[in-house]
């Protein structure tokens, strides 16, 4: 594997990790909101 490919792999892994982190954060907020809505709505 060339240094250029290695750098590209690291770059991809980093951007995917950031997006995954953001999605997980969004899911935490969503599940919290769903829980509040369910409790408040008496579902």
């Amino acid at each position, binding site marked *: 594997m060339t240094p250029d*490919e290695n750098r590209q*792999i690291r770059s*991809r892994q980093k*951007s995917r990790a950031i997006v995954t982190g953001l999605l997980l954060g969004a899911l935490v907020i969503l599940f919290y909101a769903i829980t509040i809505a369910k409790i408040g*709505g008496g*579902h």
Partner: protein
Amino acid sequence: MASSPIRAGQSAPTIPAHWRDFVALTKPRVMTLVVFTGLCGLLAAPGHIHPILGFTAILCIALGAGAAATLNQWYEADIDGKMKRTANRPIPAGRMDRQSALHFGVGLSFFSVLLMGVATNWLAAAVLTVSILFYVFVYTIWLKPRTAQNIVIGGAAGAFPPVIGWAAVTGDISALPIALFMLIFFWTPPHFWSLALFVKTDYAAAGIPMLPVVSGEVATRRQIWFYTAIMGVSAMAPVVLQLTGPIYGAVALVGTAFFVVFAFQVLRHRESDPVRMGPEKRLFKYSVFYLFLLFGAVVVDRWMFI
């Protein structure tokens, strides 16, 4: 590396796919109509749903559609590579290995269904499951490569969103969501075949038995006209059955009249050169607008008169 196309059996790319390619697998542009019809089903339903839960239901419909689109591209990667329109998709273009797409599609399917069940109800989750399975197994794997009538039955997969949206609110399925299902079901053939008329060469190159390839253009034009007639009846059914009021009735009548005129122009047109297929392109574009128009009218009508 990322620029070399791959085929089934070849080694997977060593460089991980970009996250944008996972988004591309879900076909976000096609999702617009699915999300809109699902939202209309949700808004037209009697009763109340908490905005957060309503948002989650629409999110699940979108994710389910994205999962089905992903699994479709996982299965059809070889075919996609033969068509100009689809050759640059992540798998045939060599930017992603097939297994990643499969894992992503299956994971997204389970997630969307489970989230729908937890947030709304399990009937909505069950219908979402059926729509994903129908699209992947009945349409993509079974019908599409075998019969020229593939999109007639397969089109049912795209007709589920308003039913899911409705079920998310009410927990049941009544006459109006079924009428909306039938409208999309019979709208699909003229919508897709008008497209297939002017991208016929692409489907032929990939060996997909689209109607214009198998039965010819004249037969396709007749079939478009035939299904437009049934779609027109389906569009007026909610009015006749008094499921909707005068706003939907007026919009459906005028909107369908234009559809019929455009479909008639396609029926009479005799042109094989895709460049000169004006009526076919017009019908395809109008069909998208028509569905937005009628579903929007259903919501306005239900809010004002029911």
